[in-house]
């Protein structure tokens, strides 16, 4: 039986009728048209589907959309404001922290979570903070450099 949910996504509240079994990632991509969060492994290992739910990074392939009822979701599409990239996005661009780009939306959301909690992480802390996200190009060096650079930007 479908249920009505009301979710604030990237600052805008919307109401939809969804099946309880609809995963949050499918809701975001197929119902809301937000294809920034990617479906990689769909087994909560790769982190490509990472979004923020009520301010915390979560894997949207391992949450039902009905669980988000009444909550706030931020996807990669919601990070930039008024055409200005979020410092983490900017740092990924500047440090060339992507090759194919598939992991990037999730990686940026995980990096943002890390910096929200720890504004000045050292490299091991950065690596620990993004351990839930896999880069299939194995381009981790530049990702770590980008998070380091974003931390510096955000504390400046």
């Amino acid at each position, binding site marked *: 039986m479908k249920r009505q949910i009301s979710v604030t996504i990237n600052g805008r509240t919307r109401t939809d009728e969804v099946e*309880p*079994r609809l995963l949050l990632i*499918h809701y975001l991509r197929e119902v809301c048209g937000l294809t920034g969060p990617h479906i990689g492994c769909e087994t909560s290992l790769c*982190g490509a589907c*990472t979004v923020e739910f009520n301010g915390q990074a979560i894997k949207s392939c*391992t949450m*039902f959309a009905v*669980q988000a009822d009444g909550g706030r979701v931020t996807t990669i599409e919601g990070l930039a404001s008024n055409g200005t990239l979020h410092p983490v996005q900017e740092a990924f661009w500047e440090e060339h922290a992507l090759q194919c780009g598939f992991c990037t939306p999730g990686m940026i959301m995980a990096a943002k*979570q890390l910096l929200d909690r720890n504004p000045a992480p050292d490299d091991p802390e950065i690596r620990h903070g993004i351990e*839930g996200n896999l880069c299939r190009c194995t381009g981790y060096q530049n990702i770590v450099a980008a998070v380091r650079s974003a931390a510096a930007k955000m504390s400046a």
Partner: protein
Amino acid sequence: MIAQDFNYSTPATIEEALGLISGGEAKLLAGGMSLIPLMKLRLAAPGHVVDLSRVAGLSGISEAGGAIRVGAMMTHYEVESSALVRARCTLLAETAAMIGDVQVRNRGTMGGAVAHADPSADYPAALQALEARVTIAGAAGTRVVSVDEFFVDTFTTGLEPGEIITGIEVPVEPEGTGVSYQKMLQPASGFAIVGVAVRIRKEGGVISFARVGVTGLGSRAYRAAGVEERLAGTAGSASDIANAAAVIADGIDANSDIHASAAYRAQMARVFGARAIQAAVNRAA
């Protein structure tokens, strides 16, 4: 990767939740880090899912009467970042911080992890070493069970149909206790191939108290009483530790899978056991 269709309820109270599960058909949903993957694979296909996230009384971390009570719905991140848990039951906070990855720790709950009773889960090692207790609500009222009674077997607990875990109680650690949780992890999932949690107290230069909990090795997390006995009364030297850790796998029917054979797991239990004991001894005042 789409779960079978189900009905979904969001009770607001324990009583309401107990009523919804009394028929025995419903499955409880906490953080969903174990149940949702099982549902996606259709290894679980409950017709009715009762989401506990809006139930009052399952959250919060508080101290009373020498114990810390962690509400069943507290996430691993809430446990690892709780100032109270970090200061007063360091082993639990440090173990929580080693579960899965940050996204999993943001959603996964202590009650859910305990109820799932994965033989490779991290919490059970610490909870065995802490001699923790599980509080359970049912139609007949509330009961309290030791974790040793609670963890029965692989994915099997003492939770009866129609019952809900409301919280977990761990002791406030006396000053000077040295603790450590060390695990060999399966890199893709973060689960423990083996994990050993240790608490050590010293008096007059010798070990007066030792508790050792082991996960990943057997069908359930257990307390390695033989190791504890061998440590007691020693100075905790490297050879004392090696002598104690040598018996950590004794009497255990070790798990074997694609990640580690039974013999290798048992050896890693001795290795990581010795490391955890050494780290705890070093931290004990």
